[in-house]
């Protein structure tokens, strides 16, 4: 009996080592690079925080021209008052982008000559882990529902009776409306939507001392969970990238009128990709986009925002989440709803494949998914033992698999990839 007293804790300790060490190893891969929104030339970024029918929409401003020329017209479901419009800090979108961007992780092979138990553990290192009315305006059918100033922006909320009148009104008031816009304004007018119109107040902008225009944030109550993309496509001839961050207390969000597809993930790729991860992810995305016939929305990240693994950036603080539009954390009566679940959707759209505005729904799906690509470094130290031969012989096959993964993901030439692998790992590849 006395002996048992020693044996039981020992056995327990062993069980603990066997059970938990792989998990510890499994997550030791650390984050090395990310493919964030800066990769794309014309990427718009939108943050939608939604609980029930309440929506807080933050639109990043990537306007490149002269500040005085900036103006946007966004169809909105309700009339917005001054307290429903805010100016957000650009950093908040950068934070969300960095937190949710597709990531590259790396793991290192251990010495194959070390005891077998450890080796078995180490090879599990890449686990599979599971987007005032003015007189005269009346006869154009345009009503100015509200006019106010927020930060560096002058805001107008318009309602209209017919599209030609609205287009004329906007042109008369100094907004350059692209040709063909009135045709596109009509469906929104007839759906009883209002128009959120913003331009820059130059005096305020100079006073503010900001270099760039800050994101506009609007909040409203409406059962419509949509994002109008058609207006933005009036003059577009090429494809446009849109990154939507959806924050919900429930779970991940998806698009209801287009397919939502996960971006290829959790694959081992050659080591040289470390130096060209941005290029790699762009090719990967383009390849997946073509493969899905250019008409799906890609999920790049779905995660509970209280954690990340591996982290490409620290999770957002409650204060930052609030800035991003999260409003339900202030209600302490409903503690189970205090969580924030993020879905990062990446949509590359063109006029012909995306004729309809995007419609979303939140679901209770809480699967954790991330665009994650794995580098597995071979052991390069001096090894001399029977297991070493086996290990060395297994490497070329592994490199070949990584080369094929990369070729399939990016559509790059397999011969070039093999050549680059040889250069990067040298003798090990033979």
């Amino acid at each position, binding site marked *: 009996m006395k002996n048992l007293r020693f044996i039981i804790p020992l056995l327990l300790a062993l069980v603990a080592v066997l059970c938990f060490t792989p998990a510890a190893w499994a997550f030791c891969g650390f984050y090395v690079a990310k493919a964030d929104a800066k990769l794309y030339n014309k990427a718009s970024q939108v943050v939608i925080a939604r609980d029930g029918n309440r929506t807080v929409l933050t639109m990043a401003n990537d306007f490149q021209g002269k500040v005085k020329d900036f103006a946007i017209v966004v169809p909105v479901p309700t009339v917005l008052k001054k307290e429903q419009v805010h100016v957000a800090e650009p950093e908040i979108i950068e934070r969300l982008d960095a937190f949710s961007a597709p990531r590259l992780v790396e793991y290192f092979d251990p010495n194959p000559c070390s005891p077998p138990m450890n080796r078995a553990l180490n090879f599990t290192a890449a686990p599979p882990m599971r987007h005032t009315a003015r007189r005269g305006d009346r006869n154009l059918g345009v009503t100015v529902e509200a006019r106010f100033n927020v930060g560096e922006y002058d805001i107008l909320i318009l309602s209209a009776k017919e599209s030609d009148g609205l287009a004329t009104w906007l042109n008369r008031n100094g907004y350059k409306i692209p040709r063909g816009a009135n045709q596109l304004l009509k469906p929104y007018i007839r759906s009883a939507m209002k128009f959120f119109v913003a331009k820059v107040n130059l005096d305020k902008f100079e006073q503010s001392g900001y270099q760039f225009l800050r994101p506009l944030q609007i909040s409203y109550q409406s059962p419509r969970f949509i994002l109008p993309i058609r207006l933005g496509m009036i003059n577009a001839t090429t494809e446009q990238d849109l990154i939507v961050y959806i924050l919900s207390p429930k779970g991940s969000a998806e698009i209801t009128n*287009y*397919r939502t597809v996960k971006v290829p993930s959790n694959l081992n790729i050659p080591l040289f990709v470390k130096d060209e991860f941005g290029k790699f992810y762009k090719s990967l995305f383009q390849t997946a986009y073509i493969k899905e016939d250019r008409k799906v929305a890609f999920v790049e990240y779905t995660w509970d925002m209280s954690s990340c693994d591996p982290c490409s950036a620290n999770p957002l603080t409650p204060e930052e989440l609030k800035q991003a539009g999260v409003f339900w954390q202030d209600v302490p009566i409903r503690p189970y709803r205090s969580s924030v679940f993020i879905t990062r959707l990446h949509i590359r759209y063109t006029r012909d494949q995306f004729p309809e505005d995007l419609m979303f729904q939140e*679901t209770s*799906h809480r699967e954790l998914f991330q665009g994650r690509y794995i580098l597995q470094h071979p052991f390069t130290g001096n090894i001399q033992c029977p297991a070493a031969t086996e290990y060395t012989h297994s490497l070329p096959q592994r490199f070949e698999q990584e080369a094929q993964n990369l070729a399939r993901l990016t559509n790059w030439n397999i011969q070039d990839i093999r050549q680059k692998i040889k250069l990067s790992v040298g003798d090990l590849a033979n």
Partner: protein
Amino acid sequence: MLKDIRDYQILFLSLFLILGIGTRDWTLQPELIAVAITTCLTTQYLFSLVVGQEKTLNLRSALITSLGLSLLLRTDHWTTMVLAGTSAIAGKFIFQFRNKHFFNPANFGIICALVLTPNAWVSPGQWGEDWWYGLLFIGTGSMILQRVGRWDTTAAFLGAYSVLEAVRNFYLGWTWDVYWHRLMSGSLLLFALFMITDPRSIPNARTGRVVWAVCVAILTFILRNNFFLPTAVFWALFSLSPMTILLDNLWLAPRFSWLKRKVSTLNF
């Protein structure tokens, strides 16, 4: 080739499931499909024992219901699937009028899961709008509808719905590709061909079915465009299912039977 029409239905629904998992990368979990099948078959068996009104055990219909649930209902919890499966089959036995159930079992199960649990959802966009899926659904669906003689229901539903959407599209001034995009949804076709055509629960007489299908289309249209419900079709079918009793009284026709198909086809 296969004797019972329901065998074709089982075959086609299984094919869609395999295609869905293989090519549409859904968040479908095999264990949940197993749970759905087990629950539906068990509930059917238990109710048959207790009620004992049918001479032969109707496992085919229960299997079809479970495949329908697997195709349409999404959840992360197996308990939700158990609830959906149980209520789907139980609804068939409980909500009867003159020995005829009037709720579509899979639809009833989906509505129960959506209302009673916080973790069920339906993904209307999951099939996309690929034309070959449309053709596949129409092809396989028509094979079955031809045999059970329920083309009228699908035609009335799709006809009425597409006219309403066309009027809306014209009124709003959207280009016509928006219209086609809305109509080409794989989920809508699957619903129109495989769900509202269940010959056992919908009205028996042709006129009754046409009136009923048009009502389902109108309600779907209103729920989708005025109340912005992504699950509009399921709610429309659910809320109009009891209307079957009324329509069966207004237009009389013998009830459909899987086993006496030849007798009932005489009515068409």
